[in-house]
């Protein structure tokens, strides 16, 4: 192994996880992490909480500054401008250079913009980087009349919540027929839509952005939708997805598609150059039902873990397990385990239950044989370990519902939604389920259904 110099471009979750695990497995390696965005690793997912005064910037940093020195991980704040894969020399915006033995690209994503007229105006932005947070804070530091958000996904709804905190009225443009159509089935989407309308979000489905209008100072003044409507606004959030942050690599010899092309060992087309996290594009989907781009927090973490393992041990190919994810739509939490298709498929049994107050729901998709394929739960919490096992071991839907109490992860004394779910499943599928018993304390003090 020797003392090779590992240089990692990007200090997000994948790059940092790689660096930490490499250090654990290889005491000799020289490790340098480069980021122009921020001196220290921070949690991108917490940007919204800083904006809403729920956290301070330093709280987003999972490790104290002394951690890096102690683990001999050198941090360099600069932007990489040139890469020479022959001489293995990186050139920086500052004019400095650095030589690597192994280069790991972990440059993440950037908000996708689709060439709208006026998209470079002041007050038009995505939300991905620390700098995005700062410009958003500046743009909304004075009271404004209205903001518009484009894009019905997770970042869009986060931005809507952030602006709501500042009491800024929000118009939310969603191209599809429902919120997060690629992921959420109709009933869940409706539940979320109803919930956000309680926060006075003006949700416009099947509405796209066509053009952005400027005032004399070059600030956004209004948007025009594809329906031809002009909506005045002083802030426009673009949340139409993210795309790998690889522009600076496109002029090199590296094979780049949407992202940096890699095999299942994260090897790029150039020797000693690897790519992990959002910026990596697998040649083949890494698992059934997976995409060639994996752009969530925990996949970035797993890429980093696996690649570090491969430098310290016998290399293995990357194999993600059962799919899972989570999010939060204002006050409603969302989790999913396994695969649930957003649109019903004929002949595939699917169970759906919704609480009468319309803030809690549970869906389980099964295969033709009645085995669990995946679940989506809103408004209450389910245990990852339980569902990972159930899906892996192909439990029958009946068995999952029978044992559902073990799978609930809500705090103590919360309403026992699993009892209603058990009854509903019994009614819908005509199979016997013996409902769970409640403890004496839960019966007396627990929240009611």
């Amino acid at each position, binding site marked *: 192994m020797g003392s090779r110099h590992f240089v990692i471009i990007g200090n997000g979750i994948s790059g940092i996880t790689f660096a930490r695990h490499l250090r654990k497995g290889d005491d000799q390696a020289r490790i340098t992490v480069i980021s122009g965005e921020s001196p220290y690793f921070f949690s991108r997912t917490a940007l919204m909480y800083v904006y809403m*005064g729920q956290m301070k910037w330093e709280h987003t940093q999972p490790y104290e500054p002394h951690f890096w020195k102690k683990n001999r991980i050198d941090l360099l704040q600069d932007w990489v401008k040139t890469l020479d894969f022959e001489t293995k020399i990186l050139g920086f915006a500052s004019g400095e250079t650095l030589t690597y033995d192994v280069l790991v690209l972990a440059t993440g994503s950037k908000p996708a913009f689709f060439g709208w007229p006026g998209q470079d105006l002041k007050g038009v932005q995505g939300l991905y980087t620390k700098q995005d947070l700062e410009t958003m804070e500046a743009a909304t530091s004075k009271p404004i009349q209205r903001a518009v958000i484009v894009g019905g996904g997770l970042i869009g709804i986060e931005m809507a919540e952030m602006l709501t905190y500042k009491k800024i009225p929000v118009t939310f443009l969603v191209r599809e027929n429902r919120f997060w159509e690629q992921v959420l089935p109709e009933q869940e989407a409706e539940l979320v839509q109803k919930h956000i309308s309680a926060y006075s979000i003006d949700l416009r489905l099947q509405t796209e952005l066509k053009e952005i209008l400027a005032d004399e100072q070059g600030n956004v003044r209004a948007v025009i939708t594809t329906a031809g409507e002009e909506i005045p606004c002083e802030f426009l959030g673009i949340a139409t997805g993210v795309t790998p942050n690889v522009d600076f690599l496109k002029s090199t010899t590296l094979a780049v598609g949407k992202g940096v092309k890699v095999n299942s060992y994260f090897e790029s087309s150039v020797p000693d150059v690897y790519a992990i996290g959002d910026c990596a594009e697998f040649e083949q989907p890494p698992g059934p039902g997976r995409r060639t781009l994996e752009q969530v927090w925990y996949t970035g973490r797993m890429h980093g*873990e696996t690649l570090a393992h491969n430098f310290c041990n016998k290399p293995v190919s990357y194999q993600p397990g059962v799919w899972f994810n989570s999010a939060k739509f204002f006050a409603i939490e969302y989790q999913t385990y396994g695969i649930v298709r957003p649109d019903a498929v004929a002949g595939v049994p699917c169970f759906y239950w919704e609480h009468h107050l319309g803030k809690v729901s549970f869906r389980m998709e099964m295969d033709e044989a009645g085995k669990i394929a995946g679940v989506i739960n809103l408004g209450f919490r389910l245990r990852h370990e339980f569902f990972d096992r159930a899906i892996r071991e192909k439990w029958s839907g009946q068995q999952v519902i029978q044992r559902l109490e073990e799978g609930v992860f809500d*705090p103590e004394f919360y309403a026992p939604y699993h009892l209603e779910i058990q009854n509903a499943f019994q009614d819908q599928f005509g199979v016997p389920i013996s409902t769970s018993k409640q403890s004496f304390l839960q019966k007396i003090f627990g929240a009611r259904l």
Partner: protein
Amino acid sequence: MRKIEIIGLILFLVGMSVFTILPFSSQYRLSEEQLRSSVKDIHRDQLAELMQPMYGQTYTSTHSFLTAYSSYFKPYNDELKAKQAWDQVIWDDYGFVLAKAAMDGPSKTNPWASLGLSIGLIVLGGIMFNLGGNGASHESLTHTGVFHSSLKNKGLLGLLTGSYLILFYVILYWFPAYLAPLVWMVEPISQFLSGGPASQWFLYGLVYTLAIGVMGVRMLLKYRGNRYQQLRTASLIFFQTAFAFIIPEVLVLLNKPYFDFKNIWPLDYDFFYDYQLDTFISSGGLGLFMLVWGILLIVIGVPVFTYFYGKRWYCSWVCGCGGLAETVGDEFRHLSDKSIKAWQWERWMIHGVLALAVVMTALTLVNYFTSFSLLGQVTNQLHSMYGFAIGSAFAGVVGTGFYPLLGNRVWCRFGCPLAAYLGLVQRFKSRFRITTNGGQCISCGNCSTHCEMGIDVRAYAQQGQNIVRSSCVGCGVCASVCPRGVLKLENGPEEDRIHEFPILIGNDSIKLRA
């Protein structure tokens, strides 16, 4: 709702102003009869003679009254000390009782009106403010804005509030005479409950209980979708009101020893003091029951309950200090220091105080059972040092006065010897833990930010490791503030409770320790 909130705030501020001004609105005129009925038999004649020049004089401020009192009292006492006539030296501080006896002012002549205009308005305004503010806010915004608030993020309002609290505690512990006018307005309540006169401690107990109640209402509203928080808050309000405030006063009314049945040694550090033991033993069956009850709580209650539920059964469901921290202190929880350095300090300090309390109590008991032949007055000096440094300065002034500066659990985290004892049980022999939900953590840091005990919860959650920390009081806010449903307070089998090498679910390529 906004209107109710604003009116509430105005009423609260008016009440606070009256409460603050009242101590300056009185005058003092001491008579010999007042003096004679206020001091102990053994000092009666000496003091009656010493204070002769004060009789009939009118003093227009507490300060001038106390200055005059000292000018007669101090030279006399100092002379005795110089002569080393220790048995004649007067160790009692009669400043407060004399000031109270001699006082004349609106709070004495119209106690109910004074009470209503000060504490009454504070309570009413506080409840209105909380109803208006928290009743209207959306669930998703429960924890937002704390770092944009001057009060909650060490801005000017935070500094002012902290200073006011610190000043209040300093006066309460060391200059209580200045509170005499405030004590007079709660005199009727004290007479009703215990049949006896009100002391500064009665005033403090009443204010403390009301504060937990008013801010408890706020917690109930803030967490209206969270049954765990609601039950916990209701429990804290109940134990403070019934066990810490009303029952001890009623015991006095019934001529029984003043006793808080939920206070446990070594937090209740004078439980084994000689005079306490004498009181228990000389108070018949109930006194003996108190003694046995107190010991049972220490040797059986703490280990057994903590084994099954973790230290939370006490610290965030029962304890009075916890009660104040979780209600009044709730909006300062994020100010706790999360650094590893703070954790190191914490471990030395809290276990140091525990060791100190144990040694002090052991010496006291040895001394007690050897009829003071072994150590004589040493234990008395130890008691007064501990009472000053730990009981008053640490628990009171720093523990509560510094809420807006250091967070709401400074005492519980760095100083409380009972918390240390509970924590040792929780760490090494308990079914309690906070579990993390597989691979769902996104390292956002909300849990760590809002942990009042300064535990870096995220450090565990992001590697799928159960949180088993001696300091965790099980308030459950980490679980509530988590946006991804990752944290859950659980009691379960001891097996696999502590993961040395946790594995995050999701990566089938490798199994490695995080």
